[in-house]
Structure formats: C-alpha cells, structure tokens
C-alpha cells in the first residue's frame, strides 16, 4: 500500500519497469499516453513524408499504388487515433486531477486499463503492415471498397478490430474522466469555475461516450460482412453502402471536435497566463464549447452532399453546419479579447497559442465554404479538402498540443524547454506548415483529386506539389529541432518553482513535478482563477500538517492483464478463435481478481 508519509513532498520512489506496468497514478499513465502518442505521431509523420516524396514530382515511383493506399489510410488512422487523441488524453490524464484539486481520477485502475487497451489496439492496428498489408480503404473505409471483393487482404479486418479495441479504450477513459470532473472537484470548485481546458475535455468525453457506440455498430456490421456472411453493405443483396456512411460520419464528425477541442482548451489556458489578464468571456467560451458539442451531432451529412441526399436534408445540414461556425467564431473573438489590452509575454508557448488562432481560423473558414452543397460538389475529394483538414488538425490540434507542451513542461518535469530552440522549432513549423498545406488549396481548385498515387506532367500541378513537399520536409526538420530540445532539456537540472509562469490554475499550486499524492493539502477554491485570487488577497498557501497519511490506491497488475486479454480477443478474431476464447477467460478471471483486490 502506497502511503505518503512525512513532510517531504518529493520522495522519489525507485521506478522500475514493474512500477510502470502496474501503476495506477494518473501522472504516470498520462506520461505513458504522451510518450506512446508522440511515437505514433512520429510514425504518422513518417508516412506523410513518404506520401509527399511520392507526390513531389509527376509520375513518382517511390511507392506503388497499393502501398500508397495503405500509407494515406494509415497516416490518417495513426494521426487521429494513435497520435492526437492519446496526446490529448495525456494532458487530460496528467492535469485533470491537478486542475480540479483532486488526488487522482475517480477510477485509477480503470484509467490504467484504458491505457493498456489503447496500446494493444494501437500495436494491433500498426502490425497490419507486417501481417499481409495495412488497411487501404481510407480512414472512412467506404463500402464497397471495404468488402471482401475489393479488399481481399486482412487490412480491413485489422482496421475494424483495431478501431473496436481503441474505441473500447476511449469509452472507458471518457466514462472515467466524466465521473471525475463531476465528482472529484475540490471544495469551492463549482462547474462554472472549472478551467476551460477541463470544460472542453468534458465536452470531448461526452462526444466520445455518445458517438463511439455508433461507430462500434458500424464496425461490427463490417466485421460481420467480411467474416460472417451478412450483407449489410452489399448493394446486390439489398444492402446499402450509404448506411455505412451515415453511421461512420455520425461518429466521425464529432470525432473532429474530439481532436480540436482539447487544443481549444489548451490555448484558453495559455493565452490568459501570458497576457496577464483573465480569459475574456469565460461563460461565453464554455457555452460555445458545449454548443459545438451539441451541434456537432447534427451536421454529419455535410460529408455526404454528393451522395444525393435530396433537397431538404441538404438545406438542413447546410444550415446546421453554418450554424456551428457561430460558437466557433465566439471562441475566436474571446481569445482575441483576451489578448486585447493584455501585457503580452511572447514565449514559445504563446507563439504556438497565437498562431493556433490564425491557422485554425483559416481552416474554419474553408470549412464553412464546403457547408454549401454546390461549393462542396466542386471541392469534394480534391486537395482543397486536404488543405482544410490540415489547417484544422495540424494548424489547430497539433499546434495547440505543442503550445500545451511548452506551457506545462516545467510542471511535468521541473525543467523549462529551451526558448531559443523552441522559437526555431516554432518558426520552422509555422512556415513549413503553411508552405505544405496552403498550396493544396490551389491544387484542389485546379482539380487535383485526393488519394491519387501519382499524376501526369502537363496538368499544371507540378509547382505546388513540389512546394508542398519542401514544406513537409521543413515540418520534419522542426520536429527534429523539438526532439533535440527535449532530450537536451531532460539532461538539465530541474529548476522550476511551483508556479513559474504565475498562472492562475490549481496545477501550479503544487510542486513541479507534483508529488505522487498531487497535493499535500487539498486546495480551497475561492474564485475562477484561484491562485490569482489568493495572490491578490494575500491568502497564504496552507502549510501541510507535520504528519500526513494520505491513502493512495495501491498498484495493480490486473489492468495490464485485462488489456492483454482484450488484445487476445482481437488477435483471435484475426487468426484463430481459440485465442479469442483464451482472451475471454483472461478478461473474466482478471475482472474477478480486480473486484476482490483490496483498494484501501
């Protein structure tokens, strides 16, 4: 039983592999999410580099068409499910309890389980490259591309099983986090005092809780179509491929908010700190986030305008899609209002946060453009859409994540990332990202389709393709600079004080890095910006009592064991059902062990 005793808040326990495998500490789990997420982010970036190299010149011959299909499919899947989502989860794991003044999440073991199941699903999906070819039907896997006739290999089975496992992980994490936000808040931390990052993540959790079951049904139907003789999506047998599209996008449109909202939350934390004034219009930004979440469920068919929905549905989905620009715009004005009149301190975190506003706005505006069906039928399946999503997901989600990384790094490690390297990283990334993705608008408008593995010389696409490829190499360079910065920083002595930025939120009320039990004394919240309130009212931090006995949940190996069982379930469906049976046995056995394990 781990009990923190005494007045030394920073007793560093010996960490071995076993402590990481059995940990239920949200900070360790967050770190594991972060490292895995970043590794997969690099892998997905590598896939993108191969794609850009292939497209640099006409009739490129780096990869063949088949491999190319696998690469763009896996690039999307890896970035979305194995890169950006876990990186968001990493921050949320690490900072949710710290920001609401709790000692851990509501269900520490379930938290560990979410991670292990995620890792299993991620490895399973990625291993498809080795075992007979990765999924090649796009991340959307439209029928009939996904059926046995057009995808005879195992790729689409890896896709379906992998996403089912990853979905299970996300669902467990979301349930856990939602309960934590509702139930584990420190005294005085009312819902309308929650940091905006927490609010945005709460919206994300509900988006996942309500949309994952829909994609689960679609994936189950796909598995049945491919393996158990049903014909859900086979037109010749009365099946309807459009049903897949509906089920997929009911999940996948909310999913884009799952990717962007965490970063919106991060910049909402960073901007006030380095503008030295409270967030402008807190309530508006919270309600706008909730409105985006609600409306996000009512716009999915804007991905399907060209399937012939009929006039009325087109009008409805056009209207709802345009309506969602309103809360998004509110947020942008709030961020600018926060900057306005502030004494702005430009460091790397702030560079990323401010450029987030600009880049995300570009992506948002091109998004509203294809809310209009006639415009959309021009842009559908062209590089214009590729440009749009990368402004939202790279210029938005990734840039926001880097902002958070530079901002929270001292809290997580006690060390400051180097500012000079940080700014080089920023400028390379900012310029590289615009050089890569802005020309794709032109390519799209001049008719270059997405997902073609090569093109002929005289179509007028050479220049901008070459430019985009150069930009992508700049992006790669920026990541190398970041990695150098990271490893160099980690060798420095930790110098960070509790609150080096003079930030207002609770995670800065404890040491950097935080002790295992997070807070010596659970803080009392008196205002929306608690640390600023205490500072301005001369309220001293409560001294910890000389004798502390804080119960922390003991480590457990059952999450790892269940994660293994779940992985076997999936591997079994892909290979031999005996493994599935073994997986079931392991899962049931471990759940019993879990239930009987003492947690006090």
């Amino acid at each position, binding site marked *: 039983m781990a009990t923190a005793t005494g007045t030394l808040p920073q007793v560093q326990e010996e960490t071995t592999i076993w402590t990481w495998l059995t940990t239920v500490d949200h900070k360790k789990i967050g770190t594991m999410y972060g490292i895995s997420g970043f590794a997969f982010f690099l892998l997905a970036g590598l896939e993108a580099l191969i794609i850009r190299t292939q497209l640099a010149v006409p009739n490129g011959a780096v990869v063949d068409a088949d491999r190319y299909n696998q690469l763009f499919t896996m690039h999307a899947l890896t970035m979305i499910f194995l890169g950006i989502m876990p990186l968001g989860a990493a921050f949320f794991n690490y900072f949710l309890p710290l920001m609401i003044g709790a000692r851990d999440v*509501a*269900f520490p073991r379930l938290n560990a389980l979410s991670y292990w199941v995620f890792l299993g699903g991620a490895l399973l999906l990625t291993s498809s490259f080795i075992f007979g070819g990765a999924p090649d039907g796009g991340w959307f896997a439209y029928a009939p591309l996904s059926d046995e006739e057009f995808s005879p290999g195992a790729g689409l089975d890896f896709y379906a099983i992998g996403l089912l496992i990853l979905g299970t992980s996300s*669902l467990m994490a979301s*349930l*856990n986090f*939602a*309960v934590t936000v*509702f*139930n*584990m*808040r420190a005294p005085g*931390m009312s819902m309308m005092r929650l940091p905006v990052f927490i609010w945005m993540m709460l919206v994300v959790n509900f988006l996942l*809780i*309500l*949309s*994952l*079951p*829909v994609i*689960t*049904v*679609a994936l*189950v*139907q796909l598995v*049945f179509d491919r393996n*158990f*003789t*049903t*014909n*859900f999506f086979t037109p010749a*047998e*009365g*099946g*309807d491929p459009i*049903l897949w599209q509906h*089920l997929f996008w*009911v999940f996948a449109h909310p999913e884009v908010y799952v990717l962007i909202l965490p970063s919106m939350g991060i910049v909402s934390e960073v901007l006030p700190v380095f503008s030295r004034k409270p967030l402008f219009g807190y309530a508006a930004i919270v309600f706008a986030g909730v409105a985006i979440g609600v409306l996000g469920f009512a716009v999915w068919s804007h991905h399907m305008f060209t399937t012939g929905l009929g006039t009325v549905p087109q009008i409805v989905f056009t209207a709802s899609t345009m309506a969602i620009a309103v809360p998004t715009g509110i947020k942008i004005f709030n961020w600018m209002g926060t900057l306005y009149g502030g004494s702005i301190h430009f460091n790397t975190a702030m560079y990323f946060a401010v450029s987030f506003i600009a880049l995300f706005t570009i992506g948002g505006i091109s998004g509203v453009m294809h809310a209009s069906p006639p415009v959309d039928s021009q842009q559908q399946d062209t590089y214009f859409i590729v440009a749009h999503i990368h402004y939202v997901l790279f210029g938005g989600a990734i840039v926001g994540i880097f902002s958070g990384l530079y901002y929270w790094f001292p809290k997580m490690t006690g060390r400051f990332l180097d500012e000079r390297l940080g700014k080089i990283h920023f400028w390379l990334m900012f310029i590289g990202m615009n050089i890569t993705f802005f020309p794709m608008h032109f390519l799209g408008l001049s008719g270059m389709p997405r997902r073609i593995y090569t093109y002929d010389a005289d179509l007028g696409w050479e220049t901008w393709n070459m430019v985009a490829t150069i930009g992508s190499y700049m992006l790669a360079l920026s990541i190398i600079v970041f990695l150098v910065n990271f490893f160099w920083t980690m060798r420095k002595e930790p110098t960070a004080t509790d609150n080096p930025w003079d930030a207002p939120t609770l995670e800065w009320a404890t040491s950097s890095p935080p002790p295992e039990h997070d807070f010596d004394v659970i803080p009392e919240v008196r205002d929306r910006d608690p640390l600023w309130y205490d500072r301005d009212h001369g309220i001293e931090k409560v001294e910890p009592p000389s004798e502390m006995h804080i119960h922390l949940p003991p480590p457990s190996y059952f999450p790892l064991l269940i994660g293994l069982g779940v992985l076997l379930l999936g591997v079994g469906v892909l290979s031999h059902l005996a493994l599935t049976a073994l997986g079931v046995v392991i899962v*049931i056995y471990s759940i*019993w062990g879990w*239930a009987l394990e003492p*947690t*006090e």
Partner: protein
Amino acid sequence: MEATEAAHGEHHTSLGVDNRMLLMWIFLASECLFFGSLISTYLIYKGESLVRPLPDDVFDIPLTSLSTFVLLVSSFTMVLAVYAAHHNFPKMMKLSLLSTILLGLVFLGFQVYEFRLFGSEGLNLSTNQFGASFFVLTGFHGVHVGVGVLYLGSMLIGSMRRNGLGPSGGLYMEIAGLYWHFVDIVWIVIFTVIYLIP
C-alpha cells in the same frame, strides 16, 4: 453505521452520487446509442429483403411474448434483491438474485430456441437484410443478458462470502439492478418495435 460506511469507501463526492453509480448511468447513456444504432439499422432495412423469409413468415408472437414476460418478471425479482440488500435481508436477497439469474437463463434459452427455429425455417445471417439485422440486433441483446447473468452470478457468489458484499453491498446491488433493468427495457423496445409493429 454511518461511521463504518464512511470508512469503507463511500467517499464524499461533489454531486453526492457515488462514483460507480454515476459511471453506470453515463455508460447506459452510451448503450442507448448502441442499441439505437442497431434498431435503426433494422428499421432502415425493413422491406429491403430480396428473398423470404420475412418477419411474418417466422415470428411466433405468443412464444416471444412468453419470453418477454419471463424477462419482465426477472426485473421484478431484481427489485426485490435490491430492496433486500438495502434492508439487510441476506436470505431474501440471495433468493431473489438467484431467481433473477435463472429467469435470465430461461430467457436466453428461449432465444437459442428461437434462433434455431428461425434457422430451420431458412433464415440465417446471409439470407437477407432481415436476417442480418435481426440476428445481429437480438444477438447483441442476448450477449448483454449473458453478461448480466455473469455479473449477477458474481454478485451471488460474492454475497455468499463470510461478510457478504461488505458495507457497500446495497449500493453494488443497486448498480447491478440499474444494468439489469436497462437490458430489460431495451428488450421491451425491441419486442415492441420489431415483433409487434407490423
């Protein structure tokens, strides 16, 4: 009594609802969307089957009404089990829990029988859209009942230990009851929408 409860993990929560109870409620919201999507699929494919058999050819309403009734009764025995757990009647609790499990198993037996019957009348997963959407929907409901039987079975075994389910036993039973009632309600919806409405 109050003191022992506080000592045994019914922590103070911001909303005043137990964490595990809240988790189950939110999970069931997710489950609503799961079954909602399966039922929608069934309804979308209604009338899209290219070959027989169709629902009218195979459905045996009196038989399914009987199995529906069995499941309804199991909800009633579940209520008794929760009541008994809260009021500390361990014998009554175990008995009601056992009846709930047995009724759940009888329901599953009906389902297996029905599936085999339909199979012998030429309906299976690959026959037509009715077969595919019907078997996947009711199959997944059956899996939920099966999980419920395992869940309640574990509770029953747990309650036979020397100190039973511990001081939070009532709460545990209530959460299990929530799940069980949800699965029953889903069946009522399935029975109404798929069997009764022509």
